[in-house]
C-alpha cells in the first residue's frame, strides 16, 4: 500500500534521513523506532509532505504522492502528533470536525460522526462535545487527537509519538484501549516512537533507525532473535529477556500448542504475546486456554510450551 524508495532528506550539510526504503501492507502497523535525531520523525513527515524529501520516491496505492497537491494528500491521511495540536479556540466537537469541514461534509453527517467517535473513545458526547481542550486531561486530549485523525475514516494513519506526552500509567491504559479500538483494526498505521515496549506492543513490523539510516526492518521476533548487526543487538540489550517474551505472539507458536476442546473457556487470544500468556499463567493456578478468533479453535497454554518456543527461537539463531 505504501512504498517508500530511497528516501533522503538533507539540511544544508547534515543528512537527516539517508536512503531509507520500506513498504507497508494494507492493515499493517509499522513502527519506526529510534532515539531522538535518528530521522524517524523526519521520515514520517515526508509521508504527508510536511517535510519535502530531498530525493527518493513515495507511492501510496501505486500513486506518486510527490506529484499530488499536499493539502489533498493530507486530508486523506490521519495525523496524530505528540503535543496533540488541538486547537485551543475550538471545542472538542469542532476540533474533531476540522477535516470533515474541509471536505465539506453536510452538517448532519459531521455531527453524527463526531458523536460516534466520542462514544467509541469513551468521551460521552453530551458531556464532552462543547468542552474546550484546556479543561481536558492528557489522556482525554490524546483521545480527542485520535478522534480528530479518524474523523473521515482515512485508510492511513500517521502517528508521531502519540503517547509521548502521557505519564507511564495513563500510557499503558491508553495503549491498551488503542489496540482494542475497532476503528483502528483495518488501518495502515505508521507510528513513530522511542519507546521500545510500545514498539513491540503495537508493531507488526519495526524499523530501527539510527543517524538517518534504517538499521533493520523486520518483525519483532526477528529483530530480537536475529539482529542484523551489533548496533541492533546493543539497542535491545537492556530489556532483552522481556522483549524475547514480548516479541512473540501465541499465533506464532500455534502449531506447537496442544489442542483443547471447543467448549472450553479461553482467557487469551492468539494475538497475545508470550509475555502476556506467562502473566496469565502466573496469576491463574488453573490451566490457561487460548482461542484463535478467526478459526474459533482453542488450544492449551503451558509454561513448558512457552519456554520451548523461546529456546527454539534462540537455537535457530
Amino acid at each position, binding site marked *: 500500500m505504501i512504498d517508500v524508495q530511497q528516501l533522503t532528506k538533507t539540511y544544508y550539510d547534515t543528512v537527516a534521513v539517508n536512503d531509507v526504503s520500506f513498504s507497508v501492507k494494507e492493515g499493517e502497523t509499522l513502527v519506526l523506532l529510534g532515539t531522538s535525531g535518528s530521522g524517524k520523525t523526519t521520515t514520517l513527515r515526508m509521508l504527508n509532505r510536511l517535510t519535502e524529501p530531498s530525493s527518493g520516491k513515495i507511492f501510496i496505492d501505486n500513486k506518486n504522492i510527490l506529484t499530488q497537491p*499536499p*493539502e489533498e*494528500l*493530507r486530508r486523506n491521511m490521519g495525523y496524530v*502528533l505528540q503535543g496533540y*495540536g488541538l486547537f485551543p479556540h*475550538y471545542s472538542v466537537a469542532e476540533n474533531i470536525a476540522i477535516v470533515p469541514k*474541509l471536505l465539506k461534509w453536510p452538517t448532519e453527517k459531521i455531527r453524527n460522526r463526531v458523536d460516534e467517535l466520542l462514544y467509541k473513545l469513551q468521551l460521552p458526547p453530551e458531556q464532552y462535545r462543547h468542552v474546550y481542550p484546556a479543561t481536558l486531561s492528557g489522556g482525554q486530549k490524546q483521545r480527542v487527537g485520535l478522534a480528530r485523525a479518524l474523523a473521515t475514516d482515512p485508510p492511513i494513519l500517521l502517528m508521531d509519538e502519540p503517547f509521548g506526552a502521557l505519564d507511564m500509567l495513563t500510557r499503558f491504559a491508553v495503549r491498551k484501549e488503542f489496540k482494542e479500538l475497532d476503528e483502528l483494526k483495518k488501518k495502515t498505521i505508521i507510528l513513530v516512537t522511542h519507546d521500545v515496549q510500545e514498539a513491540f506492543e503495537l508493531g507488526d513490523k519495526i524499523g530501527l533507525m539510527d543517524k538517518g539510516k534504517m538499521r533493520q526492518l523486520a518483525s519483532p521476533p526477528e529483530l530480537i532473535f536475529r539482529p542484523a548487526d551489533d548496533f541492533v543487538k546493543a539497542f535491545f540489550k537492556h530489556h532483552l529477556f522481556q522483549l524475547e517474551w514480548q516479541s512473540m505472539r501465541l499465533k506464532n507458536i500455534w502449531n506447537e500448542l496442544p489442542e483443547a476442546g471447543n467448549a472450553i473457556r479461553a482467557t487469551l487470544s492468539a494475538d497475545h504475546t508470550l509475555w502476556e500468556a506467562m502473566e496469565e499463567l502466573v496469576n491463574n493456578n488453573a490451566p490457561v486456554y487460548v482461542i484463535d478468533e478467526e478459526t474459533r479453535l482453542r488450544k492449551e497454554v503451558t509454561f513448558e510450551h512457552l519456554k520451548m518456543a523461546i529456546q527454539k527461537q534462540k537455537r535457530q539463531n
Partner: protein
Amino acid sequence: MEEQQSLWQFIAQQSDKLWQQTVTHIGLTFTALLIAVLIGLPLGVFIARRQKFAPAVLGFAGILQTIPSIALLGFMIPLLGIGAFPAIAALFLYALLPIIRNTYTGIKEVDAAVVDAAKGMGMTDAQILLKVQMPLAMPVILAGIRTATVINVGVATLAAYIAAGGLGEFIFGGIALNNTNMILAGAIPAALLAILFDFLLSLLQRMQLRKMHRLVIILPVIFIALSSFYVFSAVDKSLLAGFTPEFMGREDGYLGLKSKYHLNIRNVVISDAVMYKAEFEKKLDVISGYSTDGRLKAYGLITLKDDKAIFPPYYAAPLVRKEVLVKYAELATALNLLAGKINDSIMTELNYRVDYLKQLPERTAKDFLIEKGLYKPPQNGNKGTVRLGSKIFGEQYILINMYKMLIEGYTHLRVETRTGLGGTKICFDALINNQIDLYPEYTGTGLLVVLKPSKKKVADLMGNRDSVYQYVKKEFAEKYNLAWLPPIGFNNAYALMMRKEQARRLKIRTISDLKHYTDRK
C-alpha cells in the same frame, strides 16, 4: 472650589468648540489607526512568514518611533503641507510599530504543534492563517492596537501645531496664554479619551479566545465608524488664515479681530514654528506673527496695518532694578546709548541674520554697534558686576549682547549673562528676586502679562505707544521698584501678515482691507 467652577464655566461656554475638537481628535486618531491596521497587520503577517525580512521591517518601524513627534510633524509639512493629511500620516507612522511587532510576535508565538496539526490535516496556508494563527494571535495583536491607540490619542494633541485641529488647540492655547482652565479643557478630555479607548480595547482583549474570530470582523467596522466621525473639509478657495493657539485666545488677537474688525476668515490653528513656512509655501494666506520676526524678510512677507489699533504696542526697553541704577550711575548712560537706535525694519534685519542666516548673536550685535559707531573694546574694569537676563529667542540674545558690549566698553563694570530664562514669568521673577539686574522687556507684555489691568483701562491705553509706556513705567516703579529705561525704538507687536505679492495683487494694506476683501467673497 473656585478654580473648578470656572473650569466648568469655561467648558460650558466653549462646549461647541470642545465637542468639535473632540470629534476631530477621535477622527484623526482612528483614521490613522485604521490605515495603520490595514497596512501593519498584513506586514506583520508577511514578516512572520518570511522571517528574513523581519529585522529590516521592525528596525525601520522602530526608527520611525524614535523620531520626536514634533519633528515628525515638521518633516510632514514640506511633503504633505498642513492640516489633517500630514497629521494622519504622522499618527499612522507612530501606530505602525506596535501593530506590526505584535502581529509578528503573536503569530510567531502560536503553539507550533497547533500549526503543525493544522497543516497535517490538510489546511491551506490561507486557512491556517485565518482560522488558526490570527484568532490565536488576536490577544497579542489587540494589545498592539491598544498601545497604538493610546499613543495616537496622545500624539494627536500635537496635530494642533500643523492646523489639523483636535484637543491640542485648547492645550497649547492654554499653555501660551497661561490659562489653566483652557489647558484642562483640552487635557482632561484627551486623557479621558485615552483611558476610555484603552478600557474598551482591554474588554475586547479579555474576551474569550473562542469568540476571537468574530472580532476579526467587528474591529474594522468599529474603526471605520469612528474614523468617519471625521469629515475632510471640502476644498475651499477663499483665503485661509493660520493663527497660533495663543493668538486664538487673546483679546488683542483673534477675539479682537472678530469684535473690533468683524473679520470673518476661514482659519486653522497652527504652531508658530511651522506657520511662517506654511505661509511661504502658500498653504496659508494670512498668519499672525510678530512684526520684527526675521522670517518676515526671509519669506517675503509684509505686515498689514492695524488701522483700528487692536494690537497693543510692544516697544522694547531695558527693565532694570532701581537699586542697581543708583549704585552704578554710569549704567543708565551706557544702556541709553541704544535708545531710539533700532526701528522695526532694522530689528527685522538683525533677527533675519540670527534666525535665518544662523549668525551668532554676538557677531550680529557687534557688527551693528560698529556700523553705528557705538562699539568700544571692553575696558576689563572691576568696579562691580551687572547680571543681564534674557528670554529664549534670537531678538533677546541680540539685545543683551549689545548691552553687554556697551556696558563693558563704556563703564568699568563687568557683565554676567543669564540667557535662556524661559518666558516672561521666569525673567520677571528672576528680576524681582534679585537673581538678575536687568533684561529687555516689551511694554505690551509688561501691561498685559504682569500688570493685568481691567479691560477698560487696557482699552483706554491702547493705540497710543506713549501712554502704555508711561503707564507701565509708573506702575512698575511703584509696585516693584523697577525702572523702564527709554525704549529702543522698535515695536515687536502682533501683526497679521501676508505674502507681499498676494497682498499687492489683492490690494490689501490694512486689516480693514482684509475684512472688506473677505466680506466680498
